[in-house]
């Protein structure tokens, strides 16, 4: 440096930096921790929900299931969408082991013994909502045993190489 004195900061300067840095770090940690707690969504399968007491499922859930095509009802007047989803495995490896997503969705819809769940969603009916589509929903269980979704994403195994984009709603 052009000035030797500049290169050696006074002690109180260093502590200022440490305090400033620690404050910023603390703010970042606080933001992450509090935002995580406020916005956590718990992955669950439909079978798990059916086994547990619905009253205990107060928290925000994220579930995925196969859409049962015949159950889809849309009230365009009130934009209320109701449909039934069927339990599918949550684990990717398990899905692959059972022959891929398309096969898993097909098997789930064909199997009347699987756990099923009725879903209610308010909003635009997504383009991709159809039989054997995979619905990924975020929301809460109601006292009545119906799942009230506030977010609905859909995936269809299509003939395209890439996965079809999810559609966001809510």
């Amino acid at each position, binding site marked *: 440096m052009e000035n030797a004195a500049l290169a050696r900061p006074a002690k109180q300067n260093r502590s200022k930096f440490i305090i400033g840095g620690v404050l910023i770090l603390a703010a970042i940690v606080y933001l992450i921790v509090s935002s*995580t707690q406020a916005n956590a969504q718990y992955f669950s399968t439909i079978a798990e929900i059916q086994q547990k007491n619905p009253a205990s499922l107060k928290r925000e859930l994220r579930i995925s299931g196969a859409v049962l095509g015949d159950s889809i009802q849309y009230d365009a007047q009130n934009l209320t969408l109701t449909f039934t989803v069927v339990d599918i495995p949550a684990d990717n490896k398990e899905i692959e082991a059972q022959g891929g997503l398309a096969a898993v969705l097909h098997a789930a819809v064909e199997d009347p013994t699987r756990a099923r769940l009725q879903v209610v969603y308010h909003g635009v009916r997504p383009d991709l909502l159809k039989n054997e589509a995979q619905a990924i929903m975020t929301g809460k269980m109601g006292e009545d045993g119906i799942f009230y979704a506030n977010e609905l994403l859909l995936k269809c195994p299509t003939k395209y190489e890439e996965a079809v984009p999810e559609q966001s709603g809510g």
Partner: protein
Amino acid sequence: MIANFGFGALLITFVVALYGIFAAVYGVRKNSLAWVESARASMLLTFPLLTLVALAIIALLVAGEYSVQFVYNVTSSSMPLYLRVTALWGGQSGSLVFWSWLMAAFASAVTLRKWERDREFLPWVIVVALVTLVFFLALILFFENPFGRFWQGANGQELVSVFRPAGATAITPSDGRGLNPLLRHPGMIIHPPMLYLGFVSFVIPYAFAIAALITGRSDDRWIRVTRRWTLVAWLFLSLGLVLGSRWAYDVLGWGGYWGWDPVEIAAFMPWLSGTAFLHSVMIQEKRGLFKRWNMILIIMTYSLVIFGTFLTRSGVLSSVHAFAQSAIGPMFFGFIGLTFITSLWLLLHRWNDLKAEGQLNSLLSRESLFLFNNLLFMGILIVCFWGVIFPIVSELFTGQRVTVGPPFYERATGPLFAGLLFLMGIAPLSAWGHSTYKSLGRALWKPFIFSLLVLAGVIALGVRAPFALLAFWLVAFTASITIYEYARGIAARSRRAGENIFVATWRLSGRYRRRYGGYIIHLGVILMALGIIGIEMFQDETQGMIPKNGSLTVGDYTVTYKSLAEWDTPDGRNVARAVLDVSKNGKYLGELYPRRDFYYESQQPMTIPGVRSTMEDDLYIILVDWQQFSDQAATFKVYHNPLVNWLWIGALVFIVGTMVAAWPDKDPEAEREKVPARARQREPAKA
């Protein structure tokens, strides 16, 4: 025929690249210039070779050679020529070829620069660039071969292979599967190349950094050499992100531009570390500080670039962008781990050589404000990274998979972005070394008063939400400081040189490109912030079924449903298109046509919003539902997005600013720039 040719060229490229790595290392060991030159020639050669490979694939795509699996997967006879060409990056293996081709273009361009002053870097730059290229070529050759063809095996089973398996006969499907209609959009056609260009061009500064570590050259030469590369990389990455947002806004039909999707975040993370890097290298150039930190940043950026490619291409995360699952995931993971650990090991090896040449003196100095800027960028990066890996982490520790959605990111990054915006205003005013509160205050009081006036105006307009007011004040404050600084520079020059303000603006910006390009970039960011505040805090939406000639109101707008028509198009779509009248405060403004295209071939609908866009706000209407064979009523979702246009305008300003900062200069002024800055007088003192 063409497929065999392309495959051959691919194989040769792979061998040439491997040879280049070997020749470079051997040349260093034997201290032989001839070997290093040979390595350089082979790196140069990878570009024309990969051009042949890419052309071979394009030829197959255009010719509709459906016996080739890749062609079958991404094209169909009904697609127009430009989509057949761009289908190159419409599928997994093609996009890997495309990535490698761009990578080779940059690597070849690097070999052509003048190396006299940094001879010792050359072999190691070659090694790093070619190792990266070899990794991608190996993926293409051994896992995702675009030249694989369909065969019927002797036992009747279907096979995919480049060459005829024994006893097999060729199968040629009559037509391909075609490209996903959602991807047939101009934004989607140029978005991936821009993103890829951003990704690959960050490899070059990384290669120089590693070369500096290996050769033990601890000065800032590697930063000066790659400054422009970094800016170009950053420009393309920014362009890619903006185009992706625009595509989402235009095509996905949910009224938004950014969904905190894991793949969006994957492209955003290298941008964050790259932006931090761009800022903190200035401190190393001016003051010789942060040497280790800059190394860490560029290593991190490189790893995040590969990680981003990995996330988009491996299918580990389900997202808007993910391709089908494939075997290349673990390969990517291994490669990232290996390069990251090697880089860190090299850095630790040179840790003591990279001592800072000075120390931070004052909290108010430019360098410490830049340090805080870096901390905030890292904070946002950590938030993003945490959000992406949280499901995996939570499953590991609690057995319960827990995820976080967009509200998490918005809440956690909002204050950090606000902090960055504030620093963006005051940092350029602070002096190197240290500034006093007094001098800062002198430079700040006029913009501060002005920002308070703006705040009063916003309150007068009826805004009451405290966070919105804070956000508007920040934008006004930072904008007025930036404009004021720019204007002061222009005025001073205009007085001194007797030039009119336009000439003065032009010459000033041309002379101190980095500083004034930076100001323009900052202005762009401020405008983008304005757009984001508008849509995030003031978006209004309503939805409902409207009978014919009935209306829906959102904000000051009234939309009236007039009619709906359905028809089939020659290219295999069914189009349902509604006509709505739009009026604002009773004044008729025009018609909007939200529509829904249904692709018969793929049985897939696509929603195209009707948008009326002005500087003030966007009216964005989606056709949700209607009764078949009747146009008596239809259901719409209507969004009112205030100020969102400033997001796109800001992006344009931002890009212009980056180009100003990155523009190559030939004048002697530029030569002076290359002399280590610390040895010369500082820039004209500011404030």
